[in-house]
C-alpha cells in the first residue's frame, strides 16, 4: 500500500503505519507527535490527492 501510493506520486512521509496496542498510550502519543512533526516539515504545496471543491465557471 505504502509502496504503491508512493509509486503514484504521494510524497514519502505522508503515509505511516504503526502497530500500537490500546495499552500503549505513550507509544501512541510519541508516534503521533513524531508523525505530525515530520509531516509539518513537508512542503504544504505537495499536499496531493485531496479533493477540492469543483470550480463553477
Amino acid at each position, binding site marked *: 500500500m505504502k509502496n504503491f501510493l508512493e509509486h503514484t506520486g504521494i510524497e514519502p512521509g505522508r503515509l505511516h503505519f504503526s502497530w500500537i496496542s490500546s495499552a500503549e498510550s505513550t507509544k501512541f502519543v510519541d508516534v503521533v507527535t513524531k508523525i505530525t512533526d515530520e509531516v509539518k516539515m513537508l512542503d504544504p504545496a505537495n499536499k496531493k490527492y485531496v*479533493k*477540492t*471543491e*469543483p470550480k*463553477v465557471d
Partner: protein
Amino acid sequence: MKLIKIDQQSWNTGIEKAKSAYRVFGPVKEKNDHEFKLLEPNEMPDVHCQNTRLSPKSIIYPQSQIMFTYSLDESKEDCRIMKEVENVKSPMAIIGVRPCDALAFPIVRKNFDTPEYQDTYWIKAYEATTFVGLACNNACGTCFCTSAGTGPFGEEGLDVLIIADGDDLYAKPITPKGESFIQTAGWTMKAEASIESRIEELKTSAESSVTSSVPTDQLKNKTTLELYDAPFWEQEAFSCINCGTCTYVCPTCWCFDVQDETHGKSGIRMRNWDSCMFPLFTNHASGHNPRNAKHERLRQRFMHKLKYYVDKYDNGIQCVGCGRCIRLCPVNIDIRKICDKMNNFDADSCVCEATSS
C-alpha cells in the same frame, strides 16, 4: 446554392477572427487520437481528422455538469437554498462536426426540449452554439450514416457545411446562425458556379464510400413485446461486459445521474453521464432491479435506439451511424448486426422453430 470559397490563408485568419466572438472548438490530435477541444489562439482544427474518438456531445452536455450550488452554513440566510449555475456565458462554435454527429443534436433535443419540460442547461448550450460541419469525402468501414437518416454531406443539425476539395474549402451556409459565423470569420469570396457540379460529384463518391448499412424499414411494424421477448438477446449479450463505452461514446445517448457533493459547508448538485449498461442505473432502493441481467440491459440499449425511439417519435432511429460503438466496444458487439436481427425478426417463425426442435 450560395457557396463561399475559402482558401487556406483565409481559413486560418477566419478561424482566428471567429475566436474573438466565439469559444471555438475543433478536432485536435492528442496522443494517438483526435478529440474536440477548445482551440487556443493560433491552434487550428484538424480538417483531416476522419472523426474524433469521442463525439462532440460533451461540448453541449458535459460528462459532469454542476447544476446548482448551495450553502450548508446554518448561519447563512440562504442555507440549503439551491442556486442555479449559469452554464453558458458566451457563444460557442464547433468546427469540423461530421454530419452524423450533427444529426445527433436534433435527435437528442427531442429528449431535452419537450413541450412539458425544458432542460435549461442543454438548451442554453445548444442555442449558444453554431455548428460548423465538415462533409466527409471518405467514410470509415464502420460508418453507416446513409441508412441512419443522414449521409456524408448531410446538413441536418448544422449551421454551416464545409466541403473540402483538395486544399480548397467551400462553406455552405445553412441557417442564419451559420451566415453570421461566416460573416464573423470574414469569408466573402463567392465560389465560381462550376463548383456546384464538382461538389455533387464529391457527394456521390462520398456516399458510395459508405459500404455498410442497417436495415430499419421493418422496425416500426414489429410488436414491442415480441421483439422484447426475442430469443437472440441472451446470445448477443454473452460477450457484453456491461461497461459504459458504447453509451459514453455515442452521440445520441443522453442518460444522466444526479448527485450531490459537499465540501465543508458548501455543496453542489451535479449531473454525470450515466449508462443503461450499469446495474445501478435502475436498481431500486429495495434492492429489486427491473433490469438485473446483463442481457436485459443490453436489450434496453438497443430497444431504446431502434424500437422505443422509433415508436415514440416516428422519425427514424436514435442512431446516426457514426460507428463509434462498433469501433470502441471492447468485445465487438455490433449494432449493425443487432439492428439487422431486430429488423428481420419474425416472432411467428421463431415460435415454429422453438416448437419443432
